């Protein structure tokens, strides 16, 4: 286990949206635990009590999609989105301004894409809401789809906002490219 990077970050370098982003992420975190409990309950129910729980697979599938968007804002705020800093470190030794420019460019592109996704997702969400869309197998297991479509909109909007709000902080500090000493943040 790595030590929690957030406890070491001084308040001045924190992302302004860190708290709301962490709240969203916490919902996702609890949701993961819930899926684990559901999967285990299903296995036990099926193998020992001959009573499988219908819909665990369908619910878990949809949930993964929702969890990503719940966690997205926190990943952006805490600078844990996977990136290659090989060239950035190289540039950083020569020109701190170049690194700042690239970081801002990154934030702008990210904000643009997730804002677009939120905008595209909004119409799908409102369709789903008005048409009372369901997913699952009719009569066996079905759940309303709008909460999942809604989470996609909320999560990507929050993500876009986090990218935008990170720009002032990026302009202030020069040199550092983010938590390069945080290996778990670098994906697998």
């Amino acid at each position, binding site marked *: 286990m790595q030590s929690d990077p957030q406890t070491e970050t001084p308040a001045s370098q924190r992302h302004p949206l860190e708290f709301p982003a962490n709240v969203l992420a916490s919902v996702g975190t609890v949701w993961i635990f819930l899926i*684990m409990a559901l999967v285990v309950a299903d296995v036990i129910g099926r193998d020992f009590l001959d009573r499988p729980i219908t819909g665990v697979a369908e619910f878990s*599938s949809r949930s993964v999609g929702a969890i*990503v968007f719940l966690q997205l804002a926190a990943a952006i705020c805490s600078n844990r989105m996977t*990136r290659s800093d090989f060239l950035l470190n190289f540039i950083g030794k020569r020109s701190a301004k170049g690194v700042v420019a690239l970081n801002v*460019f990154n934030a702008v592109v990210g904000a643009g*894409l997730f804002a677009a996704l939120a905008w595209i997702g909004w119409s799908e969400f409102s369709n789903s809401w008005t048409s009372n869309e369901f997913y699952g197998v009719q009569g066996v297991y079905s759940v309303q789809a709008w909460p999942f479509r809604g989470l996609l909109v909320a999560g990507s909007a929050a993500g876009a906002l986090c990218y935008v709000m990170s720009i002032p902080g990026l302009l202030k500090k020069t040199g550092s490219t983010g938590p390069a000493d945080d290996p778990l943040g670098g994906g*697998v």
Partner: protein
Amino acid sequence: MSDLGMGGLLIGILVILVLLGIHIGVALLAVGFGGVWLVRDNLDMAIKLFYMSAYNGVADYVFATIPLFVLMGLLVSISNVGKDTFTVAEVLLRKLQGGLGVATVAANTVFAAVTGVSIASAAVFTRVAVPEMVKHGYRTTFATGTVAGSSVLGMMIPPSLLMIIYGVLAEQSIGKLFVAGVIPGFLLAIVFAVMIMMMARFTPGQVFDPQHQSQLLRGRQIEVTLTGLQMVNKLVPIAALVALVLGGLYGGFFTPTEAGGVGAFGALLIALMRRSLGKGKFWQVLHETGSVSCTILILLVAASFYSRMLSVAGVPVAISELVRDAGLGPYGFLTLYIGIVLLLGMILDSSSILLIMTPVAAPIAASFGFDLIHFGVITVLAVEMGLLTPPFGISVFTVKSTLNDPSISVESIFAGCIPFLGAMLAVLVLVCAFPWLSLALI
């Protein structure tokens, strides 16, 4: 512009964006969106595919394996299971030449069966094995190299996050990929162990620090000893987990997702019994699980868009025609592919390489008649070598940052990894040449 020129341009832009430090998920989405828009000259289609990838890209039961296996690995790491495994291996293998090195490999092999992330192994065994080896007169370069080198076993022996990512991208059964990794994984462990013993025998200067060793010979050492019962006690939790996860998968009782859920639950029980979850640590583990899973899953969302774009643009077909016209046979293609993966491994992390390469390479490999499960094992092995190659070798960085000792340079750890890279290359050649090594158990 031809399909090929367009495809080359898009992949080129992607690599440039990634190198410029754009978040890899964002870069994949941007190139996917721009690619569909330009190639089809159809903004509506780009919008539709973007939304489809975002909403459905990871909404599948197999993707639930990712948070579950991450949770299991973190719970196991926090409850000292890795340390216990190493202690037992140390006591059992001490009499061998280079015994502690072999013990590290052995403990990593067992630990790999309960974790899917190489860097988790690297972090755990840096704390456990490096101080112990240094205390017994091993060179730090060798000790750190051994930990970084044997951490790659975490990805070969199931469960393995890279196998899941590959399986998703190449549309292959993740259960089968897991089983296919078993023999190459153990083969790799055996080659590592034999190599360490040979080095200890024939080039002891590489392995031991002569000054420190002569000091050790003069002073009396107090060795850890364990009774049989103590060893059993230390091994029961991990043995039970391995049996549950691998047995369940291999015996067909569990789908990969169920194995992940049951494994995480088992790991939770172990952590509870060992009282490792006090003082907010449980929340820390859960929080970490969420953020690690999210960074991987968002990459997969983005990659599913990128690979849809590639097939819309006809890139895999165009490249495979090019490869054919160039007169490359299947093995020529394979050599070229491995070469590219190894080069990318020097500058990118493992999941990014898979995300960029698999959608292009898997259809070509299939058209050359490769079994895509076999191809997956080759790919993961080649990608894993990138964990140990400079300038960007994430296992090495993990060892360095976990060790937190300024007297040990990153360069010396990279140097310690070189023999392990050689061993991996040898195993890679064997796996390429003998497909049954990966396909025998399926």
